[in-house]
């Protein structure tokens, strides 16, 4: 049981950081972004070049990765999204799919399909919780996710521009009418989303130690599901979604491993997602039907 929880929480942080990037962009722009996984993987290749090939310290590689992913998000907004102002969010979402595929193609082109080794930052520092070996980056992932999920909103509220970001997620048109440059807000949101994608990939990589094309996309798919479970617009919701999926997944692999279900991870994620969406769709109806019954009769 403890083991299931610890294993679940390890992944939860990663899913949550991916989900936070999705929610950040979605809230402010109404666009669902599908490129997060590939942006994160690209960051890892940057780290690989700096750390493994150039023998620079891991932190320098991480900084380079975050710089490149953030710049990529900014460039994407400046060069493409901005020109599509009249387009509906679905078209822009499709554009993010195109971005992801382009990055994937570049990864294959420049680095090939074989795994590249990127050593974790602090090898010796891992410790054991409930019989599970836990590494510092895994703890960091959870801490980062919790801090961002529950703190980002409060931090944004402190500055006028940050408050403008929150306002843009409620009424983008009105933001311009009070004189806040909306284009600067969307620039920050797309860059911020890409930064979070890079961060999520950096936090998970040390657990595996190698990078392959499309590496982070599998995790991102779960992160996307976590964002949807959290309601797509809530930062804390994204973290809760990540935790739910992380634990569901580790519970499934613990208790259903004998059943030999291929792709158990995705089956679990899909089942939880479906359950949550169904519940959300049916809850108002259920509540309406159950409402007239006296309390207790429903239990």
């Amino acid at each position: 049981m403890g083991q299931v929880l610890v294993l679940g929480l390890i992944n939860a942080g990663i899913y949550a950081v991916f989900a936070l990037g999705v929610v950040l962009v979605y809230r402010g722009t109404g666009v669902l972004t599908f490129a997060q996984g590939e942006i994160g993987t690209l960051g890892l290749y940057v780290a690989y070049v700096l750390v493994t090939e150039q023998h620079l310290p891991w932190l320098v590689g991480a900084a380079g990765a975050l710089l490149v992913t953030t710049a990529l998000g900014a460039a994407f907004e400046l060069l493409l999204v901005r020109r599509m102002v009249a387009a509906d969010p679905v078209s822009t979402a499709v554009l993010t799919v195109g971005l992801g595929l382009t990055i994937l193609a570049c990864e294959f082109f420049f680095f090939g399909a074989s795994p590249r080794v990127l050593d974790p930052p602090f090898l010796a520092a891992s410790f054991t919780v409930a019989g599970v070996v836990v590494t510092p980056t895994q703890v960091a992932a959870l801490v980062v996710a919790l801090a961002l999920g529950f703190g980002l909103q409060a931090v944004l509220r402190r500055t006028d521009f940050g408050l403008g970001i929150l306002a843009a997620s409620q009424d983008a048109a009105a933001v311009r009418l009070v004189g806040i440059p909306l284009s600067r807000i969307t620039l920050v949101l797309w860059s911020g989303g890409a930064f979070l994608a890079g961060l999520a990939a950096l936090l998970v990589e040390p657990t595996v130690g190698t990078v392959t094309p499309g590496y982070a996309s599998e995790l991102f798919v779960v992160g996307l599901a976590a964002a949807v479970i959290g309601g797509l617009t809530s930062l804390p919701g994204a973290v809760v979604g990540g935790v739910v999926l992380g634990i569901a997944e580790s519970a499934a692999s613990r208790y259903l491993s004998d059943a030999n279900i291929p792709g158990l991870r995705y089956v679990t994620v899909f089942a939880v997602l479906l359950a949550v969406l169904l519940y959300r769709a049916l809850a108002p109806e259920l509540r309406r039907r159950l409402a007239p019954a006296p309390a207790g009769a429903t239990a």
Partner: protein
Amino acid sequence: MTLLELHDVTAGFGAVTVLHGITMSVAEGSIAGVFGLNGAGKSVTMKAIGGTVPARSGQVLFEGEDITRLSPEKRVARGMGHVPQGRQVFPQLTVEENLRLGAYTLRRKDKGRYGPALDSVFDRFPVLKQRRQQLAGTMSGGQQASLAVARALINQPRLILVDEPSAGLSPVAQLELREVLQVVKDSGVTMVLVEQNIAFGLSLVDTAHLLQTGVVVHTAPVSELDDDTLATHLGIGKVLAGATGSALSARKGSKR
């Protein structure tokens, strides 16, 4: 002195042209009324002034300067304020946060002016002071209307564009709103006011611009307007015109 001028402004969306050449001028310190049926292009006219629907041809002059190509944000920084149709307060921010955002360009120019500006808004709208921590979306329609006006005023604009402020308000709330707009006017802020509620609008404005499918068909000081002109240009029948008549005669009697 003329604060705002539109010269033959056209605007639209995609293949559709909505404004077919709007010309009007607004004197400093006055209230210009824009009246017309649903879909006549009143809101689009406001958006062409504000810049969110840029003019395709023609000119928009503000304080004598050509601002036709300026972004909406820059126009706000130059002294335009907005009370948009549907109010558009930020529902999940508090009253005070809404006001802080309203003062965005003021605070950027000089943070020191924000405190006094907030105090004066709170003096004018005591209800907002009481509810400063309340989420804007949980307030009543009338309170949200006050907040929308206050959010524009706190930035100390020279011109405010007010689009159908009375829509959806109870008669009492409409009276309160009328008071507020009158006070705004008396404080010297110039206003462009769009109203469906003709009686409400005529009780406030100095000049009326009557709009039909994207063209100003008639412009006159309120003192020279009569029911027949209104009925002809707005296509409203005698019944409704009768209702506006009292507003008109009241205005003529008061000789403001």
